[in-house]
């Protein structure tokens, strides 16, 4: 059987070999590949060192225990209990102190330059029907029924405003062709086929942006680890993929999907995905269909 040993993955097979997890057939194939590359088999398969874990004690354990209730306090306390200040807040403070975040804040929708609403953007695919169905016409009743993300003060009105006016939408559009492939992916291909490596260049604008987006990413992480079914797990991976594909520009349409994640209702999230994609592509007929489907799922 011919396998897919390449210059990019042969080291993974070498590791399997050295750990005794490679079949004789695969070993023969790996040896042939190594020889063909002009590499030294004996040198490559020399014994490799392992790290010995040191005993380190974290001295702040007691301060981490018994934090304030989440709801209502948001990590702030007024008594002598310790407040855990999230890292992103600390980073924001440092950045502000350095005078480098004058134009961006933790909530970019309030400071990002306003751009034209999505309804005025040109369609990605000219062949598609160009309606002017703005996302703002999403059924308000349905949006109202979505709980705001518990870790933020973001309310449905803010979400609506975000979707209508945020400058990030223009950037998100660039990722839509990849996003459109998501329904065809399974768990394995989500992890291997999509460019999940974050290659962003660091800059202060992105940093502030990411601080916001990271909150959403945590939603997906929580979903992954609390998933009890393959469907839920797949959905959380879809969320992660959206996050990665949009380089953190997650919150707008993906917030709708995230809201579905929060309630662990895959049907709602997938329906929202369809609707968002339809809106992006200005496929009027499909949008109406998707909207009806979404409403239907919300009503169940």
């Amino acid at each position, binding site marked *: 059987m011919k396998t897919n040993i390449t210059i990019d993955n042969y080291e993974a097979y070498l590791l399997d070999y050295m750990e005794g997890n490679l079949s004789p057939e695969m070993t023969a194939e790996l040896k042939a590949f190594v020889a063909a590359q002009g590499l030294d088999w004996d040198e490559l398969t020399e014994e*490799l060192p392992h790290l010995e874990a040191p005993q380190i004690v974290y001295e702040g354990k007691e301060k981490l225990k018994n934090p304030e209730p989440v709801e209502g306090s948001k990590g702030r306390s007024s008594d002598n209990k310790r407040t855990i200040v999230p*890292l992103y807040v600390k980073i924001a403070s440092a950045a502000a102190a350095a005078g480098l975040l004058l134009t961006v804040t933790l909530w970019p929708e309030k400071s990002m330059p306003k751009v034209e609403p999505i309804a005025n953007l040109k369609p990605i695919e000219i062949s598609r029907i160009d309606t002017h169905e703005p996302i703002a016409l999403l059924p308000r009743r349905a949006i109202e029924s979505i709980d705001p993300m518990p870790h933020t003060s973001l309310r449905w009105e803010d979400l609506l405003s975000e979707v209508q006016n945020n400058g990030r939408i223009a950037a998100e559009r660039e990722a839509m062709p990849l996003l459109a492939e998501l329904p065809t992916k399974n768990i394995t291909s989500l992890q291997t086929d999509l460019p*999940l490596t974050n290659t962003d260049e660091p800059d202060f604008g992105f940093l502030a942006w990411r601080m916001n987006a990271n909150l959403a990413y945590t939603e997906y*992480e929580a979903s992954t680890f*609390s998933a009890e079914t393959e469907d839920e797990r797949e959905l959380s991976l879809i969320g992660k993929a959206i996050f990665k594909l949009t380089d953190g520009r997650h919150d707008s349409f993906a917030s709708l999907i995230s809201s579905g994640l929060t309630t662990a209702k895959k049907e709602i999230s997938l329906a929202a995905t369809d609707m968002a994609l339809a809106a992006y592509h200005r496929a009027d007929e499909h949008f109406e269909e998707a909207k009806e489907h979404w409403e239907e799922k919300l009503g169940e």
Partner: protein
Amino acid sequence: MDRSQYNQCVEQYADRLFRFAFSSLRNREQAEDVVQESFARVWEKVKTVDFAKAKSYLFTTAHHAMIDEVRHKQHFASIEDCPPNELKQTHNPYPDVNEMLHKTLATLPEAQRNTLLLRDYEGYSYQEIGDITGMSEAQVKVNIFRARTALKNRLKSIDNLIDIEP
């Protein structure tokens, strides 16, 4: 997960999480920030995070926080100036060869460093490390193989140096 289980998580995993962050970042203050950040996130999600999966959730959150810390450090290096010998300035938990390996570890790319730490310190499977870091299992193995090879080459270079000395 309830409050009692959350406290149990702190007791069981805070040291290990700190060790992971400290070994990767080589900066005590940043490592403490990562630990606090990770537990803050767990507490925010305490009702939805299953106790049995809390450790993985903590390490995943810590991993992302560490990536942000590294980028933050790059940005603010001039005003925060992380001391390169942080390990020496605090305490030295790595004797002899292990110390040298950990110093070499600090020079490795982030992905290699973190995957190796998760494997050797925490004993995670390659699939679990992939879940934590967002890599495929093959990518995890490639990174770990390269990290170990770099450590091996470092050991060999030291051996050669000793052989040359009279």
